[in-house]
């Protein structure tokens, strides 16, 4: 579904991604683990087109998207749930869900999002900026679902959430996967990633340094210690 | 980097040195520098000035007393500082024998000392500030345009004697021209027995005259309006809309209904009275001929005041050069002749110069009328040969401070 092929990305002069390659099969969840500054978010930004790769190629459904503008990439069926949620404070919940909606037969609707996240329904006409952290995260995911993506990039979706909400997010991820959606799951919480990902990569200093099934990584204390400090 | 700098400098030097390549004639041309705005807010005034000035020169084929005349035009833009720089260029680089032009009073004040120091005759063809030829008069300066004070005097006399006003409200722009016209008006009007009961000073950039018009005192017999340029359109429009023009007469400083504004003013200005040393509708052979000729140049129905007075200025300068037989190099003689030169008939009438360097000329009272499809400033009264000192003794007049916001003070406000 998504192929990232030897991607190099720079911020100004600094070389952040130094040759990253990975693939996401259809309806699979691929986890990316790594410390702060390893380049996880930059990878997401490169895929989404915010910070286009300077070298290498990114293919989505066999079409090259390396240097497309983000909105073109989004319209092909990618969407991102950014780190820090990036809520629009000037919009209320209903508006946030509607603003980027790209309806599809049998696709996501506002109603379905409310079913998935009941607290949002009660808050439909509250400004998004006044929601709690967990509600904002639901809204961020809901907003992305409304574009009916086939691939969702989740950048630390559990950051700053209480255990209850973390569990809810996990549940949502599972539901989405069952509906056939592919996901790139960037996480700092090892346990969370191991629980939901079908395959995991560990990044360090802009490179993928380890790739395995979550079970293998769960067994490999050495790798965990070396790259994740666990 | 240094190489680039040097190259750039060399290129600049070459450009300046090569341009005024003078033809090697036995008698070099007479160089006249002319400073007028060709860009910025006042560009059209400047272009009109040049049109008028050059029209006369072209009528005499740029030849005076057997010498070619070379006119060097410089753009003062919208800032007086530019005028100074350009004046220095004309003096030091082009070595002009006479300098003309200057629209804004500030530019004229700024340029005068520079020209004076260089001993080059300066003929101001528009800038109107009183003191240029009064308390700050300088030896090499002559002015063939107008002053605010002289116009105010005429208006004060006319308002009291002919219009029968006794109480007047003034709305005037808050700068030299406004202060001086108002001051002159107030002095003559109040000496005759009238009262100025209100003076409203409006900033030069005023987008909305509504608040001022609404606060005009209703007991005034008439309104003196000293607002010029595009702002005049707003003020007169506002006076019309607020109904003031239907109830009262408005006497306005001439350029408030300058011919170049008449289209924009349209019907709103009908009946407004103004005072100025010229009108396009002035019915003399010289003027009719001038109007016809300048229309061929500008291709417009309306001829601006600044074009007309600059045509006259060129006539007068040329006459002086003729009288010295083209010997402009003899500065003192040339300048004395210049000041002594008289013209019996120009588009605006006769021209002569008083001993302070200012023009003595007719001032006309005009009324905005519509004749056919066109508007005009119909001349309804002529004040002949008006001096900048009105009927006062010049020495005593000059002992008083210049007209300003509070001089004369508003005793009846």
């Amino acid at each position, binding site marked *: 579904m998504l192929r990232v092929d030897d991607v190099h990305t720079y911020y100004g002069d600094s070389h952040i991604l130094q040759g990253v390659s990975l693939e996401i099969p259809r309806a699979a969840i691929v986890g990316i683990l790594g410390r702060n500054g390893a380049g996880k978010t930059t990878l997401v930004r490169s895929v989404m087109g915010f910070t286009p790769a300077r070298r290498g190629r990114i293919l989505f459904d066999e079409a090259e998207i390396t240097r497309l503008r983000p909105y073109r990439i989004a319209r092909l069926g990618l969407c991102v749930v950014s780190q820090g949620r990036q809520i629009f404070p000037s919009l209320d919940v209903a508006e946030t869900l509607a603003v980027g909606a790209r309806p599809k037969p049998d696709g996501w609707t506002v109603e379905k999002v409310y079913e998935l996240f009941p607290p949002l329904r009660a808050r439909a006409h509250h400004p998004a900026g006044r929601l709690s952290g967990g509600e904002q995260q639901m809204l961020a995911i809901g907003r992305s679902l409304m574009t009916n993506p086939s691939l969702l990039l989740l950048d630390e979706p559990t950051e700053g959430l209480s255990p209850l909400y973390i569990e809810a997010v996990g549940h949502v991820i599972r539901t989405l996967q069952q509906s056939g959606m592919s996901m790139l799951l960037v996480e700092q919480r090892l346990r969370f990633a191991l629980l939901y990902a079908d395959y995991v990569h560990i990044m360090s200093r802009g490179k993928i340094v380890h790739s395995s099934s979550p079970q293998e990584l769960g067994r490999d204390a050495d790798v965990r210690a070396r790259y994740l400090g666990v | *980097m240094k190489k680039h700098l040097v190259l750039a400098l060399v290129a600049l030097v070459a450009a300046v040195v090569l341009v005024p390549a003078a033809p090697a004639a036995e008698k070099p041309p007479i160089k006249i520098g002319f400073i007028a705005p060709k860009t910025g807010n006042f560009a059209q005034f400047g272009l009109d000035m040049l049109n008028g000035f050059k029209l006369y020169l072209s009528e005499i084929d740029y030849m005076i007393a057997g010498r070619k005349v070379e006119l060097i035009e410089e*753009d003062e833009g919208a800032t007086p500082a530019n005028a100074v720089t350009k004046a220095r260029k004309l003096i030091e680089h082009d070595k002009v024998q006479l300098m003309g032009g200057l629209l804004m009073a500030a530019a004229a004040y*700024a340029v005068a000392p520079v020209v004076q120091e260089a001993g080059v005759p300066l003929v101001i063809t528009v800038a109107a500030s009183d003191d240029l030829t009064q308390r700050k008069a300088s030896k090499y300066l002559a002015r063939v345009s107008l002053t605010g004070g002289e116009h105010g005097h005429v208006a004060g006399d006319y308002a009291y004697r002919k219009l029968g006003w006794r109480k007047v409200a003034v709305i005037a722009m*808050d700068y*030299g021209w406004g202060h001086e016209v108002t001051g002159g008006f107030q002095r003559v009007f109040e000496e005759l027995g009238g009262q100025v009961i209100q003076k409203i000073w409006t900033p030069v950039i005023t987008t909305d005259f509504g608040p001022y018009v609404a606060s005009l005192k209703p007991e005034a017999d008439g309104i003196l309006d000293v607002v010029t340029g595009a702002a005049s359109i707003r003020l007169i429009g506002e006076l019309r809309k607020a109904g003031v023009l239907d109830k009262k007469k408005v006497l306005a400083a001439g350029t408030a209904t300058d011919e170049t504004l008449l289209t924009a003013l349209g019907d709103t200005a009908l009946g407004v009275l103004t005072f100025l040393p010229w009108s396009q509708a002035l019915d003399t052979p010289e003027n009719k001929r001038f109007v016809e000729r300048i229309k061929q140049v500008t291709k417009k129905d309306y001829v601006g005041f600044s074009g007309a007075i600059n045509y006259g200025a060129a006539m007068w300068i040329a006459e002086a050069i003729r009288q010295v037989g083209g010997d402009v190099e003899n500065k003192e003689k040339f300048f004395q002749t210049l000041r002594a030169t008289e013209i019996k008939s120009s588009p605006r009438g006769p021209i002569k110069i008083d001993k302070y360097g200012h023009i003595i000329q007719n001032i006309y009272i005009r009324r905005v009328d519509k004749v056919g499809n066109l508007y005009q400033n119909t001349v309804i009264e002529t004040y002949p040969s008006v001096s900048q000192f009105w009927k006062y003794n010049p020495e005593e007049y000059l002992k008083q401070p210049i007209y300003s916001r509070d001089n004369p003070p508003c005793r009846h406000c």
Partner: protein
Amino acid sequence: MDVAATRAPMRLVTGLAVALVILAGLAPVLPSYVVILMTEGLIYAIAAASLDLLLGFAGLASLGHSAFFAVGAYTTAILVTRHQASFGAALAASIVLAAVASAAIAILVLRATGIYFMMITLAVSLCAWGLAYRWVSLTGGDTGIVGIPRPRVPWVGLASGTLSFYYTVLALFVVCLALYLLLIWSPFGKTLVGIRDSESRMRVLGYNVFLHKAVALVVAGAFAGLAGSLYAYYNGFVGPSAVDLAHSMQFVLMVIVGGPGTLVGPLIGAFAITFLEKMVSVFTERWVMVLAAAYVVTALWAPRGMLGLLRAAR
């Protein structure tokens, strides 16, 4: 003393010295109008470089710089025409008063940052213009103050007023340039760059960021006052146009066109814009178009200003 650290500055000083020698040596053989414009260029260069201390170094894009320039100009005009002040006294008073004015304004404007700083300084500039226009007894209103004689500085063997004044300005320019260089190399100069890069870090390092910015405004204001004083002498008069928004914009444009944060860039920018306006207008009525094109071209193709372009070309 760190020898390595002095290498780049020494190169810069050498380069500037060569440029100054050229500026000084060429003047007598150049047409006088070019010398006149070079004088103006030098005055604007002092002002533009002072703005660069704020805009390029401390990251404070001020649209109100002409206010301090004008304080200097009016101070000189008033002292010279009404109190027969000497050149030195007028200069000193202009510098001091401009500095005092900046200190007062600093308190008002320094809470705002970024675009809001630009806008509040714009408001200051507009109010200053209103003051210059309205406070007639002090400023002479719209006609301003005229009749400021050129300072009499006896330069050996120089008869021409133009040339003599040019060397006077050049000498003061050299002094300013030296002070500017010392300033940007000094500890204080570095603190300004630090503030531009990260105010929050500067605070936790123990810097009173507000005070440093205020001092920068005062210093820049003092230099602008000096330039304003010279401007008064140069033109022989001062009017409200010295304070208007266009003038403030012009300083900012000089800095941007030359290259902000470089000190040398604004000097080039000042010369470039002065000559573009006053030299091109001798040849074509459409000089405004030429200036417009120059701005657009610089904005599009010289992201770091003319100095950046020159550096890239090397």
